[in-house]
């Protein structure tokens, strides 16, 4: 937090902001194109890219002084994916018997 205060972070913030707005426009436009099964993939891919930008640069995880913050972020992601994976493993296999 203090080690990168020499150079102003403002250009970075504005670049991230522009990138987020461009991505929003792209995902809105892409939603009306028929990409078959890739529509959901493109929408979620762009959302994940935007979420990564916000987490890393707006929430300062990239420059976090504490490694523990990065650990919390990664374990949050892990447990959320675990929730989805185990639930889908259940509902996805109920018709097997």
């Amino acid at each position, binding site marked *: 937090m203090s080690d990168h205060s020499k150079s102003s972070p403002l250009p970075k913030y504005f670049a991230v*902001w522009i990138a987020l707005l461009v991505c929003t426009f792209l*995902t809105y436009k892409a939603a009306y194109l028929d990409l078959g099964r890739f529509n959901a993939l493109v929408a979620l891919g*762009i959302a994940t890219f935007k979420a990564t930008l916000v*987490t890393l640069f*707006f*929430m300062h995880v990239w420059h976090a002084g*504490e490694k523990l913050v990065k650990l*919390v972020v990664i374990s949050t992601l892990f447990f959320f994916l675990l*929730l989805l994976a185990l639930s889908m493993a259940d509902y996805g296999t109920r018709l097997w018997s």
Partner: protein
Amino acid sequence: MSDSSTSNSSLAGLQHSEPLGHGKHHPELLHHFADVQQQRNSASLGMWVFLATEVMFFGGLFCAYLIYRLAYFGDFAAASKSIDATLGATNTAVLICSSLTVVLAVWAAETARRTLLIGSLILTMLLGLAFLGIKGKEYKDKFDEHHVPGASFSFENVPVPGHPGQYANPQHAEIFFALYFVMTGLHALHMVIGLGIFTWLLIMAWKGRFTPQYNTPVEIGGLYWHFVDLIWIYLFPLLYLIDRHL
């Protein structure tokens, strides 16, 4: 018992040069922290752990959405197409702009720019209110169309996109709208709480409480606001966009 009290006092002696008063260190530094930086890191870590619980909180709803969406694909597509994607996209842009004003506020607090700090906080709150206003317009449309789950819910004769001659099952569509209202409603509640936090930050900033040494509340409040933005970044494609092409 006596063990812990002796170790406590020796720790206190290590962390703060005596006398143990407010004279020698920053007035906002609490006694159980070694220095301002450690206090700041602890607060930030605590906020991240709270956000982890929030992810799991919303995560259950996202999981429910995923399960029902896979089960009732066509009905969800029909229901999803009835909400206004342009309003949703506008709200996404509004929230992204508010995230920018939040990082500007955090930067202004760290670099002692009082006018920019107060201006950014006010702008963030105005954008938050604009978001809630647009959200309210969406909710009103849904009320007018009888798409709110409950006794007056009606979703008759709505064709399933991509399947000519098929009509959406109203009960399955009602599940979509229940998820829509719970997820966006919970998100909107977080926005209202965020507005409360930012009102308090604005008062503190007005009183000149934040300095380059002490601006943890701005940073922590900012993390909360960005998190609410993050949730919307996923709600927007999942609820509004996914079935537009059909």
